[in-house]
């Protein structure tokens, strides 16, 4: 892509010559051509930095998300059977990805974190591939790269734009991050990034978090073969430290009740817009206010019964593919899920009535 700002009259070639060709010209051209190529390369570099700066907060490089893209991502693609997993050992250092210890098809390593990361990545791949027709996180079969043993006593797991990383926890607040709903959550951040993105702050950031929780929970429910009323709807069950009074990190069924502990305090998640938390911490409360859309999804699933990863999951997935608004508010997202429900279940269907009811119960009218 070339912006007019960078299409200077002196160098019209900047608009059409790709960087790799400029590199060849810089090497092999006559002195004048080489000098021009070097100048243009510098400009391209600068443009890339500026774009990177614009693309803050989980927003991927700008590319148009069209209806065609959404359709391609929703309909089953060919050659979509197999993940390409690459699990690395960070050896308690911060450098990524670390030492490759298990590639696709390799047997277990005997390192519990690495084997859980491998198996869970397969479950999450399978959810997106078999249920939603998506080939890996980018829809194009990208390798699933993960690092376990990231840093020392590290109380976190994340998606960095290209891979997943999991700490071991400090053994006090967290005992592990290798749990299917957590792994599904991190991988879903990759799917969100490659589906047009949601800026990682305030309401759009809380949506990013909520959608990650939704698919993390669905990956777990599907792996366990649980229907809506059998599932616990917890995110990160069992990952808190042994001395912590709490079942999990978040509860989609009852936000605000996952833990209550002297050290951690009370789970701060609201389930209704009346209790929306305005804060500048945590990128504007992205891990707090996600409780509201999380609970709307739970309510919708509970009204319908059955397997949550089927129609409800398909509706959420379709809404994500068609959203095309990185700054979406909760209300924008609710509207988008309604559009998806109408497409998949029909206008006036009982499913759309239940969806409207679910959003209304958390204080969002559609």
């Amino acid at each position, binding site marked *: 892509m070339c912006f007019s700002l960078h299409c200077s009259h002196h160098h019209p070639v900047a608009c059409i010559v790709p960087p790799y060709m400029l590199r060849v010209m810089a090497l092999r051209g006559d002195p004048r051509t080489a000098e021009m190529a070097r100048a243009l390369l510098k400009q391209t570099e600068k443009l890339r930095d500026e774009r990177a700066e614009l693309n803050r907060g989980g927003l991927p490089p700008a590319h148009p998300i069209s209806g065609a893209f959404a359709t391609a991502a929703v309909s089953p693609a060919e050659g979509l059977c197999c993940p390409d997993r690459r699990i690395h050992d960070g050896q*308690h250092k911060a450098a990524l990805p670390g030492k490759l210890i298990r590639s696709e098809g390799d047997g277990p390593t005997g390192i519990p974190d690495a084997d859980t990361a491998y198996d869970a990545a397969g479950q999450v791949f399978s959810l997106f591939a078999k249920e939603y027709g998506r080939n890996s996180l980018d829809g194009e079969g990208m390798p699933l790269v993960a690092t376990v043993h990231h840093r*020392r006593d590290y*109380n976190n*797991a*994340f*998606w960095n734009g290209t891979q997943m990383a999991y700490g071991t926890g400090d053994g006090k*607040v967290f005992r592990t991050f290798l749990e299917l709903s957590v792994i599904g959550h*991190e991988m879903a951040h990759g799917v969100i990034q490659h589906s047009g993105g949601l800026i990682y702050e305030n309401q759009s950031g809380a949506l*990013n978090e909520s959608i990650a929780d939704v698919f993390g929970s669905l990956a777990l429910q599907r792996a366990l073969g649980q229907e809506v009323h059998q599932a616990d709807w917890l995110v990160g069950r069992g990952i808190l430290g042994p001395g912590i009074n709490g079942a999990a990190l978040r509860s989609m069924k009852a936000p605000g009740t996952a833990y209550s502990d002297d050290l951690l305090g009370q789970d701060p998640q609201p389930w209704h817009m009346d209790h929306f938390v305005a804060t500048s*911490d945590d990128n504007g409360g992205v891990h707090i206010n996600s409780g509201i859309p999380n609970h709307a999804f739970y309510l919708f699933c509970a009204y319908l019964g059955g397997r949550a990863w089927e129609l409800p999951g398909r509706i959420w997935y379709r809404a994500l593919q068609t959203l095309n608004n990185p700054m979406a508010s909760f209300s924008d997202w609710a509207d988008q899920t309604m559009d998806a429900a109408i497409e998949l279940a029909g206008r006036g269907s009982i499913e759309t009535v239940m969806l409207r009811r679910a959003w209304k119960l958390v204080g969002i009218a559609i």
Partner: protein
Amino acid sequence: MIIEIAAQGGFGGIAAANLHKTIDVQDQPEQMRQDLCEAFEPDQLARLARQPCGDCADRLTYRITVTDDRRTRSFTLREAQIPPDMLDLIDQM
């Protein structure tokens, strides 16, 4: 030189899970002292804070405060802006 580091954010969104460390560089062994002085040199921190941050899903934010004889300076750095070697140093502190 006194270095104070407070982290926030992360997958859990739990404040208590995040590290909060204060160290006096003078009390450290020689090698550590040198590494810390280099890594936490205020102009170096300011340069890091200006780098593009990239993707930040579930990542930590560090508030780093450096106090020397003359003054106190504070910087807010995203985890993604901090080089791996410096993160290792923070983990060792």
